[in-house]
């Protein structure tokens, strides 16, 4: 049941990215190019998504638990530390170099474009580079 709901939610999320054209790298780069020919669409996407999620989260989190899981899993860290800022800075640079962030890149895998597959392979490699491949036990051995 929780996999089925995740599938449907994934479709909904992907439809949002597709309808808003956020899966188009050229449109993202046109948003980031504030001093050139600027396309403010991403700002409207964010504002609309935030309006719905700000209200919706309050309704959802007022319940005792989620429908298909025993509890809500929310981030607990509150400190603005160096890894958060350095990592986000790196992400911003990579985002504007490619015009892709993880969601649109995954959805974009459906479109058969070589450039997007290059990004995706590098994305997985970058994640593994940070998180590591081996089990922690094997690492300490």
């Amino acid at each position, binding site marked *: 049941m929780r996999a089925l709901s995740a599938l449907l939610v994934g479709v909904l*999320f992907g439809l949002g990215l597709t*309808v808003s054209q956020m899966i188009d790298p050229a449109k993202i780069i046109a948003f980031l190019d504030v001093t050139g020919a600027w396309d403010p669409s991403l700002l409207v996407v964010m504002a609309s998504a935030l309006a719905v999620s700000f209200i919706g989260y309050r309704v959802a989190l007022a319940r005792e638990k989620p429908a298909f899981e025993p509890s809500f899993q929310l981030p607990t860290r509150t400190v603005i530390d160096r890894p958060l800022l350095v990592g986000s800075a790196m992400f911003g640079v990579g985002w504007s170099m490619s015009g892709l962030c993880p969601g649109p890149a995954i959805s974009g895998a459906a479109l058969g474009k070589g450039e997007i597959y290059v990004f995706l392979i590098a994305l997985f490699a970058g994640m593994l580079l940070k998180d590591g491949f081996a089990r922690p036990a094997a690492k300490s051995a």
Partner: protein
Amino acid sequence: MEITGFTPVSAAIGGALIGLAAVLLMALNGRIAGVSGIVAGIMAPLRGEGRADLSWRLAFVAGLVLAPLIVSAIRGEIVAVSTPHPLWMMGLGGLLVGYGTRLGSGCTSGHGVCGVARLSKRSFAATAMFMATAIATVFVADQLMGF
């Protein structure tokens, strides 16, 4: 500054769908709809972690891939996208996005939408940071490299 290609109606509709998806993943599965975290979680079993969550994470990713195919089928043509920057920037960009989102614990969806909607201070800081460096990078690329 000159405004071009602005599509406010489809942006508002698409944004609402993204927001609704984030709310539903919380209401049904109790999870933050952060794509970088979900994708990285799929690779966690390589390290012997997160096996129990593999199925819903894979299902969510399958849904993301399915969506443009549904839109393409309805429209009768494949959704058009273009990648204006050269291939090396797609590769280097992917590496930076992969490493950076893990180090920074999130991306546009997890921090920019879910975290800001929860009024998380960390997500406000992360979103301000990645927006600033992204805008600065495009500016530098424009000025120095003529993209």
